[in-house]
């Protein structure tokens, strides 16, 4: 197992190199003056643009430019994000917890609903629940998340005045930036419990419901489809018939025998699903005005904040590489045949 993980880990730098090459390659569409923004930290430097271009070799051939940039990147310097008004590294630290909280808050409902609905619609194939889940899958694929989000806001915020957009109310905002509140994790729900402030927990919870419903509806369809088809494959196998022949109850046959095997592809997919949800928040955060990585990335893209956009993409590359590593490891863990290959 360890050898497997190590072998996989050895591939990571290669993938990371590929992604940075791709991103920096894209920047070649920009003028050297625009690329210079990657290195500018102070508006005063704008008057000495030519010096910046010379210093960082921005008119040199691609490999030279890339080398200079990569060296700075490895030193941990990602530049200054104009939209966040802070260095990119700090911006990531400031925005990521909010995004992570939203993704985590949506991940477990998606997993539970997806697996349950997938199992049910395989066991009761072509019955009512199967038709319902098929309908939900097709509408889920067809409904843009921003339309769903806006409609939910119209009903639960505009009409019922229950669930507002944003991440917290004004009172919470004042409290968490005061001395009476210690930020342990950056996750509002966790911090509010650690600070014993239940009303803050409730406030954060209320703000998470709508974006989380939006993410669930859009993402659950894929999971249902995969669970269903994998479950259908398993329940026709011989060992399931044997289990039934032994006289085991139907729920034991389905839940203990068939589902355990059917979940192998689902488990491995789940970490990629998590990365997918983190990607999906780009739109959801903008709709709900939720201050996370996605909203920052979109703002940066709108305002040509190149260091911001590149930092945003690099963060996602790391997440994606990690997600793949976790998926591979889980796969090897649940299916020993993989490890021996």
């Amino acid at each position: 197992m360890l050898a497997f993980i190590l072998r996989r880990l050895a591939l990571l730098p290669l993938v990371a190199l590929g992604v940075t090459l791709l991103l920096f390659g894209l920047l070649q569409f920009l003028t050297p003056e625009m690329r210079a923004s990657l290195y500018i930290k102070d508006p005063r430097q704008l008057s000495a643009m030519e010096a910046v271009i010379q210093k960082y070799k921005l008119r040199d051939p691609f490999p030279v430019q890339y080398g200079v940039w990569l060296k700075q990147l490895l030193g941990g310097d990602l530049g200054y994000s104009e939209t966040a008004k802070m260095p990119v590294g700090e911006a990531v630290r400031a925005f990521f917890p909010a995004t992570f909280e939203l993704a985590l808050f949506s991940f477990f409902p998606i997993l539970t609903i997806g697996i349950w609905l997938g199992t049910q619609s395989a066991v009761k194939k072509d019955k009512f629940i199967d038709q319902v889940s098929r309908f939900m899958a097709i509408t889920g694929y067809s409904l843009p998340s921003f339309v769903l989000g806006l409609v939910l806001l119209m009903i639960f915020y505009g009409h019922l005045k229950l669930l507002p957009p944003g991440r917290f109310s004004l009172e919470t905002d004042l409290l968490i930036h005061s001395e009476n509140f210690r930020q342990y994790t950056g996750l509002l729900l966790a911090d509010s419990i650690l600070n014993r402030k239940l009303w803050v927990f409730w406030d954060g919870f209320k703000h998470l419901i709508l974006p989380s419903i939006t993410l669930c509806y859009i993402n659950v369809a894929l999971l249902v489809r995969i669970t269903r088809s994998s479950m259908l494959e398993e329940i026709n196998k011989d060992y399931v018939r044997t289990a039934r022949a032994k006289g085991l109850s139907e729920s034991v046959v389905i839940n203990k025998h068939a589902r355990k095997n059917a979940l192998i592809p689902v488990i491995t997919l789940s970490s990629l699903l998590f990365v997918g949800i983190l990607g999906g928040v780009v739109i959801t955060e903008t709709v709900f005005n939720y201050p996370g990585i996605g909203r920052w990335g979109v703002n940066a893209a709108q305002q040509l904040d190149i260091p911001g956009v590149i930092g945003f993409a690099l963060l996602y590359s790391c997440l994606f590489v990690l997600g793949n590593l976790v998926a591979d490891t889980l796969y090897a863990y649940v299916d020993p045949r993989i490890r021996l290959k």
Partner: protein
Amino acid sequence: MSSELATLLRRVKKNPLSLLGLGLISFFILIAILAPALAPVPPNSRDSYLIPQTGYSSDPVRPSREHIFGTTEQQYDMYYGIIWGTRTAFKVGVTVVLTSLAIGIILGGLAGFYGRWIDEALMRFTDIILAFPHIVLAVVIVAVLGPSLKNVMIAIALVSWPSYARLLRGDVLSIKEREFVLAARALGATDFRILFRHVIPNAIYPLLVLASLDIGNIVIYAAALSFLGLGAPMGYADWGQLISLSRNWILGSSGNPFEYWHTVLIPGGTIFLFVLGWNLLGDAFRDILDPRQK
């Protein structure tokens, strides 16, 4: 090939949902063709895709006799935007599918045909793009190229070719071992001729069907980028852009919380029906093309 097509048509006919999908798509094709008749272009217009503006009031106006779908903020006529937006949707969908197919066919064909390190390098590259969240990569590409509808199309094409490349590569791998390829080689055909005249034409049919069904997804991506303010400029007939104009109007006036319902539901419903059409049809086709189902 023709027997496959016949099975396909029989399956579509038997399944009422895929018929509904076909109906929806035909309906939208009709709207796109008849756009100049359904929503006449004002005589002084520079570009028929620019939505005419009636006044400069910032508040949207509800549907009325004069504007049957109402107006958006800044008084753009919603009906005109929806009708000409149908043309935009098809233009975006078809262009992107063709572009990403071209990239996918060339890279997938080369990888499958030459194998070895070319295959390895191209497929690792494909894996990276395939697994990276598409919307993130598209946002980065549009940011670098500059926000516009054209660049949105380029960005989506650049992120959506990998699945085609992968599919074609698999088919090329098996077809290049067949006798007729060997025969062509024995006759002295060049690699280029073998690949593009003998191998790819024999592998391309399922790929074309699958790709054309992606038009729905592509339109959602394009609408999302327009919604995020990275696509069509304000006042351009584009569904995603129309929805982005509704963002400030989710709150109605006091006593009438749903006063501006039309700003979200009309363009949102249109996109939904359009994409639903493609997905309903796509479901039937994927079942038929899936070898495991046979």
